[in-house]
């Protein structure tokens, strides 16, 4: 499966000045292929998250197109795109993304229950939690978890649906080196099992896990 961006661009209105636009991502081409682990580094504010969100079907580009296997995802209606995101794209957003009323296990199962009435795949969720090393916290509530544990929970959740695309926004931010290595190995493993993996980060710690390192600077991507 291939995720491809053609000439995608994102403009944001500048706060206060209604007619003035500011370009967060200049038109760029980008390809993400199965089995590959790609890293985009860049300073804070360089447009990494904006690009990642456009690739994830979360943020409509101001120009250009995003194709998933030759399907223009922003030509789909909201419902179909949401379903596509649920089935094909595993997104690990920046920061905390847990539902506080649910247990860790229930949080991991969430993507499944959105469109399936059948018994959720509890065993698989537990295996994933085991892989990310927080199986013992399965029944805990998110607010009992540390930042690193929450991040790992989000990774397990993003992998539950066995997505062909995995997009992670700063998955290692705020983690100690041990946790960082654990998280990156997991993503590397997902790529080895056939997923197309993109990690966005402002640090260099991912370098030796990756196939490609790209740099983003001022909204432009450099090889």
């Amino acid at each position, binding site marked *: 499966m291939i995720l491809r961006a053609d000439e995608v661009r994102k403009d944001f209105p500048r706060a206060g000045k209604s007619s003035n636009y500011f370009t967060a991502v200049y038109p760029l081409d980008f390809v993400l292929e199965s089995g590959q682990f790609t890293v985009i580094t860049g300073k804070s504010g360089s447009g990494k998250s904006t690009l990642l969100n456009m690739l994830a079907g*979360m943020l409509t580009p101001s120009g250009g197109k995003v194709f998933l296997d030759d399907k223009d995802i922003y030509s789909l209606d909201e419902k179909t795109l*949401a379903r596509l*995101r649920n089935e094909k*794209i595993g997104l690990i957003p920046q*920061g905390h993304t847990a539902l*506080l009323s649910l247990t860790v296990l229930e949080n991991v199962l969430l*993507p499944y*229950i*959105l469109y399936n009435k059948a018994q959720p795949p509890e065993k698989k969720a537990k295996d994933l939690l085991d892989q990310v090393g927080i199986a013992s916290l399965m029944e805990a509530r998110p607010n009992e978890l540390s930042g690193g544990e929450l991040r790992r929970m989000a990774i397990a959740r993003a992998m539950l649906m066995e997505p062909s695309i995995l997009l992670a926004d700063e998955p290692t931010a705020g983690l100690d080196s041990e946790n960082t290595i654990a998280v990156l190995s997991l993503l590397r493993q997902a790529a080895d099992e056939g997923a197309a993996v993109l990690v966005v980060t402002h640090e260099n710690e991912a370098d030796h896990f990756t196939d490609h390192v790209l740099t983003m600077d001022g909204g432009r991507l450099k090889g």
Partner: protein
Amino acid sequence: MISLKNLPYKNLKGYAGRTAALLLFSMLMALATFGGTMVISGIRAGLNKVESRFGADIMVTPEDAKNDFDAQNVLLKAEPGYFYMEKGKMDEIAKVDGIEKMSAQLFMASAKAGCCSAKVQMIAYDPATDFTIQPWIADTYTDGPMGLMDVVVGSNVTVYDNHIIRFYDNDCRIIGQFAPTGSTLDNCVYMNYDTVKVLIKASFKKGLNQYSEYDPDDVISAVMIKVRPGADIEKVAGDITKQVDGVSVATSKNMVAGIGDSLKKISGSVSFFTVTFWLIGTLMTILIFAMMINERKREFASLWAMGASRKIISDLVIREAVVVNLAGGILGIVLSALILFMFKDLIGQVLGVGFLIPGPVTIILLAGAALLSVLLAAAISAWIGVRRISRMDASLVLKEGQ
């Protein structure tokens, strides 16, 4: 295990404080709307019953009775009382044009003292001419015609197993009991003339009756009048006032007008409280719900990121609002019903008018309306919540803070 179906419940449980506040306010809202409309229709039901039970167009009472006896009051809130005029007034009244039927009644109040089982208003009627009481008696009593020392009692009169009620050392046999009217008619004991004469004489003997100079054979307390079809009630009443000395005349219309006025006043203030409570409840529900949605912005954005469509998220929000408001609404209605049933007599006393619990159909309709009013608040809350969520930029929310 978790499912899309039980997700709203888990969320509500997870935000227990907010949920409790929402429950409380929707409960208060239902309590007020159901309670308020029940009280208004209960008063209306009580007054309708009194009006139809009263059954006469005009009631003539002795003039001097006016001070301590008001025809309206006897229906709504009077203490039992007694007063008499000469029987001869009947013939004078009969001369007035436009009267179709007339029937005399004799009132007496049993004393509070040890002589009697209860302090009640006794009303004797003349079976030959009566048209106001017998239609109701026919509904209730089964034990053959009313004989000497037989009585039919109002719903508030306690009937013991032996069916005996004692007045001035005389045993009366209770042969029937009326359904409640929510008025003082419920405290009355009905009997025929022969019976009341025995009781009046007994009260004289005991010195418990201030009218001992009267011969019970020669007095009456009130004359109930039905006018001929087409006759003007006000005119007939006016003619009686003019042509007969020493009497006070009340028309059912007067009484109903008085009743209507007090009903309007009470309904007005009850409605005001009901609407105020509902508004406060709705506002609070909307506010709390909006706060809860705002607090959970990141959760909704996360759901969207993992592939929930806007519809799935909206449905979740709507179901949370409906579940919590419905639960609060049902609680409020049940609580309100409990209070009304437990304190129905007290409510009538406090309001100073007849109060009857409305029939089951009315209760169901009012409960349905109260639930709808609570669900309306749920709908508004959910609508505001859904709008907030659909307008939010999920990618931005996920970037904000941690």
